[in-house]
């Protein structure tokens, strides 16, 4: 079972993602506080990260850059997640693999995840 880490500061979205992904046979860890992301990566060892761009007090793109700079974490694919469709343009510059705009379509979400799992 592939493991997916979801980071989003909105509790509703987190619960939704948790349910959606577990119902589709993924093991999910969902966190609301971005500060916990590195610790979660170490403990949970995810196969893919879904990362919200506008986190309370932090920019998801910067966190993505950090992940991609780290030897230990850079192999993990990152999917940026935002309600702002323009964020899709920043995907490659911060090293992310894909972008999903909110609100998403279930089929598209699952396909993007499948495509980016190593």
């Amino acid at each position, binding site marked *: 079972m592939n493991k997916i880490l979801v980071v989003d500061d909105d509790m509703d979205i987190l619960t939704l993602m948790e349910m959606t992904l577990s119902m589709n046979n993924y093991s999910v860890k969902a966190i609301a506080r971005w500060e916990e992301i590195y610790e979660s990566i170490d403990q949970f060892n995810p196969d893919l990260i879904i990362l919200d761009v*506008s986190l309370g007090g932090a920019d998801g793109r910067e966190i993505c850059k950090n992940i991609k700079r780290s030897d230990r974490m850079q192999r993990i694919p990152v999917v940026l997640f935002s309600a702002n469709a323009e964020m899709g343009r920043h995907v490659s510059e911060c090293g992310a693999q894909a972008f999903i705009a*909110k609100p*998403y379509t279930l089929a598209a979400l699952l396909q993007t995840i499948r495509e980016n799992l190593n």
Partner: protein
Amino acid sequence: MQVVVSVLVLGIFFTIFIISDTRSYKQRKVEDTITLAQVIGSNTVSALQFLDEEAARNILMELHKVNPDIFQAGILDKDGNVFVHYSKPGSDSPDVFTLLKNKNSLFRENHLYVKSDILNGNELLGKIFLEADLAELRQLNKSKFESAALLLLLALGFSVFLAMIMQTYISRRLLSLVNTMKEVARTGDYSKQIADDGKDEISVLVQGFDQLMEKIKENLRRKDEFIGIASHELKTPLTSLKGYLELLKQIEDHSLSRKFSEKALNSVSKLEKLIRDLLDVSKIQGGQLELNPIEFDMGNLVDESIASVQLFSNTHIIIREDDLKNTMIVADRQRIDQVLVNLLTNAIKYSPGEKKVIVRSKVAKDELVIQIRDYGTGVSSEEQHLIFDRFYRTRNTSVHISGFGLGLYICRDIITRHGGRIWVQAEEKGSTFSFTLPLHKLAAKQQTLLNLSNEQNFSSR
């Protein structure tokens, strides 16, 4: 304009000066001539005593030689008969004796006529009459007018020169202001500033312009920020709604489908609230937020509002620490409910991890005070005024709190429209939001409130 006024004022001053100078000159001349008459009079005392006409005539002729301005001189004896009379040859002056029958001195066509008694001790011997030509005065006035005109001309030239310098200075700055304004209107670049730290009126105008631009820029920035937040805030519940509905489609389990539809409905209600706030703000902006005041029991409303908020919160308990039964007020019940629900929801939202919110109320003089106390993150003193502004959102939280930042702005508008006040106070832990509503006990006052709210609606339109 300034030049014309200053020249006019100068002209008036010169005229006044010349007139008063001429008057004092005349006064002096009268005195001098009377003195002269008295001197001549005393010289002719012996001539009068001895009835020596010849001697008297000589004295008068000598006088004319010494003082050619004296055109006419004459002496009457004590009985009023002409004793001696001398007149300058060629002079056509009227008879001095008849002119001064009832007066001691007289000005006539630039000639001065005076008379004086001739006394020997206390004995009146006769009267002396003199006519003096004031050609000197004419000459004097002429030269004064000339110099005044010259001075006026110089002043005119100087003030025109000064005005031109001033005008170039002033109009250059005004033109720069106008050009900047035009440029802003054309390009829409509100970051333009004209640095002018002077103290005069134009500097004040320019500084006012700079402040206006600063304000516009700030408002635009907030508006942009708002649009960003709005799209995010609208899309997040939509995401949730759409996501759950899609899951609902995917599953068959009925107990789960019930849970999912609850979640979906919750998102729908959040969307509803956001959209209602947006509509309220656009109504406030357009001055179309109307109040429908009715008389109701505030105690009941507080209970209802608490109950409706409590329904959606299983983390906090809202405690009422008073009894407000039978406190009738006249207000828009729905709008006051909106304010209460908003403040209570905020109190819960901004105190994650806490357990209680306290509602207190009291009647003070002619107003009702409602206070909502939370034990949350609190409001810093810098933020206490800002949080009631449109689009303002506190940056004091680490976890995302949904909303447009319009709630308190709407609350403030509703409360002030009712004639009340709303404010926040920092507590040792958390904060207290308070608002007042006027208590109108008399029916007449209720009518006033009704009219007032209508007037406010019209005037702000």
